């Protein structure tokens, strides 16, 4: 009797199964890619990146996403609202098993006509890993004021973000220009500005110190570049001021009215320079050492007075004509003697202003920003990334650019990736984008830093500033940075190299000001 019932049930179940198989339709193919945000279609990803969570922006519900690769199990995700959050473990495994191969994304949505399948897309998994951490400053889209800010580090292999230093524990100070010796978190520096405790924090050879790089020759240093030997840091010394336009989508603009380069010798606590890099007739800025330490790249423009023009008998500044050229000067690290100064790329031949040169770790390329004018590309929509091949001399506008400002780039330690700030999503908040570069300088499509919440960037009205790739976690506790900043016994006052003569330096000033609440 029991067997009879069992047979009956099994037969019924079999019929139902057969019917469901027969009735189940194959999803109707749509001959287009799905709209997803962030756009992770057809990109190249490092094999150690966190899951690229995204949102399907198509009508209908629910959604099915299948992520497959030649090796291992595919990842199947169902979502009612189109938010696709990829399980971390499965993602890590599929990347690890398929390094050098591709991930295939198949996305389906159910609408009034049943299941629809979008054209699949792929992500190439690069065997070139990216540095595990990204350090950046998070600030409001600043015009003049600041209140809250902090330098953070994000583990790119997960979604963990932790503060390196926040101004909640530094009496509300401004902090900027975090910089590392060859992507090494154990040798790093940053500036703190705004009242007592201001200075440059340098962690060098295991000692964290605060340095006042201001001397009778110069104000405190600004844009840094660490010499590959680790023994010295080149700084620009700038006098920046902000002005505003009445009619353009990005109304902010910045002017540098005087700038020079200095070199801070860390071990000797001494500031030195040379007339070739601190010429009163020119404005030198954005230093960048070549990886062999035998030359210094920087940007240079004639001084501000040379841009004063007479308009209707009245003197006016032709701010839109201020353009910087890319320069290089030879340097002997042993004797510390400066050599020949040469123009690598002139503003004239580039028909624009060159800023932020960054030499690739293999010394083959210089990645730089070009904008219509000025030295503050983050506020210029015309700012784009360019690459100079140092072997061939060929300059190329990179395919990763957008209609918004693309600037502030940083190479990974292995030179196969770079990160840059782009405002392409909304025009006013910069986001870190990553791009792969092969040994021939060929680029992949850039992709934005993944977030656990795929809709994160929609409502996050803060800007990611100065993204710098770092090999590993910065281990110094934020409180240690804060305590050092306020501990005058750890303060070093830089000495001036006796060969240099004191000169008018003016007050230390800042582009931004703390808010009075």
């Amino acid at each position: 009797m029991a067997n009879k019932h069992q047979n009956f049930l099994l037969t019924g179940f079999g019929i139902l199964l057969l019917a469901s198989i027969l009735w189940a339709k194959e999803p109707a193919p749509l001959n287009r890619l799905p709209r997803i945000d962030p756009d992770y279609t057809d990109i190249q990803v490092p094999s150690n990146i966190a899951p690229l969570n995204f949102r399907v922006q198509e009508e209908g519900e629910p959604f099915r996403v299948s992520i497959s690769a030649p090796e291992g199990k595919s990842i199947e995700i169902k979502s009612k609202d189109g938010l696709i959050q990829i399980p971390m473990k499965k993602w890590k495994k599929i990347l690890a098993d398929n390094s050098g191969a591709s991930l295939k994304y198949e996305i389906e949505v159910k609408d009034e006509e049943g299941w629809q399948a979008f054209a699949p897309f792929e992500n190439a998994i690069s065997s070139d890993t990216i540095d595990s951490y990204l350090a950046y400053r998070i600030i409001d889209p600043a015009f003049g004021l600041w209140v809250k800010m902090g330098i953070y580090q994000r583990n790119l292999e997960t979604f963990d973000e932790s503060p390196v230093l926040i101004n909640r524990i530094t009496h509300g100070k401004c902090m900027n220009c975090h910089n590392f010796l060859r992507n090494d978190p154990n040798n790093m520096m940053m500036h703190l500005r705004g009242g007592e405790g201001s200075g440059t924090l340098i962690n060098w050879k295991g000692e964290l110190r605060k340095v006042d790089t201001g001397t009778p020759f110069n104000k405190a240093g600004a844009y840094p570049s660490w010499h590959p030997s680790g023994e010295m840091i080149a700084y620009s010394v700038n006098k920046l001021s902000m002005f505003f336009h009445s009619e353009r989508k990005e109304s902010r603009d910045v002017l540098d009215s005087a700038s020079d380069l200095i070199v801070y010798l860390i071990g000797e606590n001494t500031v030195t320079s040379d007339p070739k890099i601190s010429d009163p007739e020119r404005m030198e800025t954005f230093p960048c050492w070549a990886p062999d330490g035998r030359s210094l790249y920087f940007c240079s423009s004639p001084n501000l007075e040379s841009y004063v023009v007479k308009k209707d008998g009245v003197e006016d500044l032709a701010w839109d004509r201020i353009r910087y050229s890319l320069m290089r000067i030879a340097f002997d690290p042993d004797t510390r003697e400066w050599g020949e100064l040469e123009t690598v790329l002139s503003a004239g031949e580039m028909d624009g202003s060159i800023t932020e040169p960054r030499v690739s770790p293999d010394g083959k390329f210089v990645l730089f920003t070009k904008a219509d004018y000025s030295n503050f590309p983050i506020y210029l929509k015309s700012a784009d990334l360019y690459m100079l091949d140092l072997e061939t001399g060929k300059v190329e506008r990179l395919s990763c650019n957008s209609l918004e400002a693309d600037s502030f780039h940083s190479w990974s330690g292995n030179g196969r990736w770079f990160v840059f700030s782009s405002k392409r999503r909304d025009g006013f908040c910069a986001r870190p984008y990553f791009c792969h570069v092969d040994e021939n300088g060929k680029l992949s499509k850039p992709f934005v830093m993944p977030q656990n919440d795929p809709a994160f960037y929609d409502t996050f009205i803060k800007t990611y500033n100065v993204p710098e790739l770092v090999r590993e976690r910065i281990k110094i506790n934020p409180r240690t940075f804060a305590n050092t900043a306020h501990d005058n016994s750890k303060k070093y006052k830089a000495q001036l190299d006796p060969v240099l003569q004191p000169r008018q330096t003016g007050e230390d000033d800042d582009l931004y000001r703390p808010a009075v609440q």
Partner: protein
Amino acid sequence: MSEDNIKMRGLRNLPILATGVLFLVSFYLVILKVIRPAAIYVKQMPVFVSTSHAFHEALAYPGGLIDYISSGFMLYFVKEWIGALFLTILCLMIFILITALLQKRTLLKGFWGLPFLPCLALAMMLTNYDRPLADTMSLTLALGVFWITQQFNKKSLALRLILLFVLGCMLYYLTPGGFLLFLVLIIISQIPTLISSPINIILIGLAGAFAWILPTLAYQWIFLISKKEAFLAHLPWMQNHPVMMPFILFIILLFGSILLASIRIEPKVGKGNRILNHPVTVIAQMILIPVLTVLLVTATVNKTTRKIHEIRYLAHENRWRDVLAAMDVNAIRHVTCMTLINQALYHTNQLASNMFAYPQAWETSGLILPADIAYEYPLDHSHIVYDMGHVTEAERWAAEALVLYGQTPWVIEHQALINILQEDWAAADKYLQVMGKIGPTRERAAHYLDIVKDPERLRYEYRLQQLKALRPENNFVTSINYPQKDFEALLQQNPENKMAYEYLMAHSLLAKDFQTFAKFLPKYKDFNYHRMPRHFQEALVVYVAQKGKVDLPGFQPDQRILQRFNEFRQVAQQTRSYGNAGIQQLKEQFGDTYWYYLIYTQIESG
């Protein structure tokens, strides 16, 4: 319990209930009418965005959750009755807790008005406009947790210590200041018990140590916060504001009550109790407490702060006639208020004809804020330049407001509209996404999102269309330090920009810059005035008098103005020797004229 007993008890409690109701009604009314929840809203500019990121950020520091929740409630303070209700409910909770704590304490039997006294001090604390909701929530929590621990007073010391530790840690995470208050209450309540239970010294000692250790651990190891925040967050001395007196009063009354209540004395039906229970005393308490609430709050409210924020609120709501009606001596003391009053004068078509009827002692700063003050009131400044179509400058100051206040509904909505005007759809969309995450602005966000999705809809937005038409088409470098240059440039690019014109003329009058005034006077004919505005005529008379002969053909002041000018000169001459009395006489007759401003305002303000 017999029915008679219940009745008797009900009758005994009747005065307490009646006083409670009267007190709460008076508390609600003083919040609503005297303190003004709208003024609290403007002073606080609450930030509450319901995103996981904002929530996690709030959880990252002790007290953050209370800040977040209180900001969420405070969003509704623009509806003033809701704001008053929130605060009254909190006051009721504090009252209930204090009453519960003092119940059955024999010494205080009969003095049932006692629990009202700390609440009265609380009402006074709210008059300073500094974080009233978060701080009051913190006090409520501290008292609530203290009340819970009191229920275990007769349990073993070990249990009480565990309770103190567990509840203390939880309370600390919610409100560090409340935690400190809670521990002080524990200590105070335990001191009188030392004679009967000397072992309680352990509880006192550990409570004292706990008050020091936990905040120290918090700022040195656990959270990235300052030392001050670790110990005092949510207590009034976190703010640099003269709020201390009502707070100290609150603390004294609270601690005093708890201390007295902790002294256990056998009940004696003596003379004191008879007096307290006498019908006259009962009625006196019933009347006195609500009356005192009204009087003390009215006396202690910071009238200048209230007025500034009341005017800022009205201006934000574009209630221009109400702005002018709300103007008083407190308002004109504040330069930002003066700019809002002048903005209201423009919107009610009175700037060119009646601005000097209002004290213009702030001169040009009272028309348009100089940079240093604009950085303190960026949103108000942004709205002024926005109204004249100077959209990028409005965006700049809205961005400063975003930094200063955070993602408040006003700032986010203003930014969204600015970006819609600039047809910067991606940026507008972003602000609208955030706006959609702020409770009270959700509907408006959806409305504007429709415009972003279909920009054709902008045609149906009359105000936005008007402003869009005023936007300058050609770029110029703006200058807040020389606003007349911006007004000129705006006018040059859009000759129909009436606000830019009136502000340019008002600026030239306030700056006594007759050259600019004369240069742009002829343009008044482009703006459909019935006749030349009164102040222009008054300035023209002076200009003609100064220059002797001027090349402004066809620009003749009215005979009435000329006649009044002659009278002014006569009276001024006659009263010259009277000193201040003379000036006062002149002010009474001619205080609303440009002539009076020209000669005497500087003397008055200087």
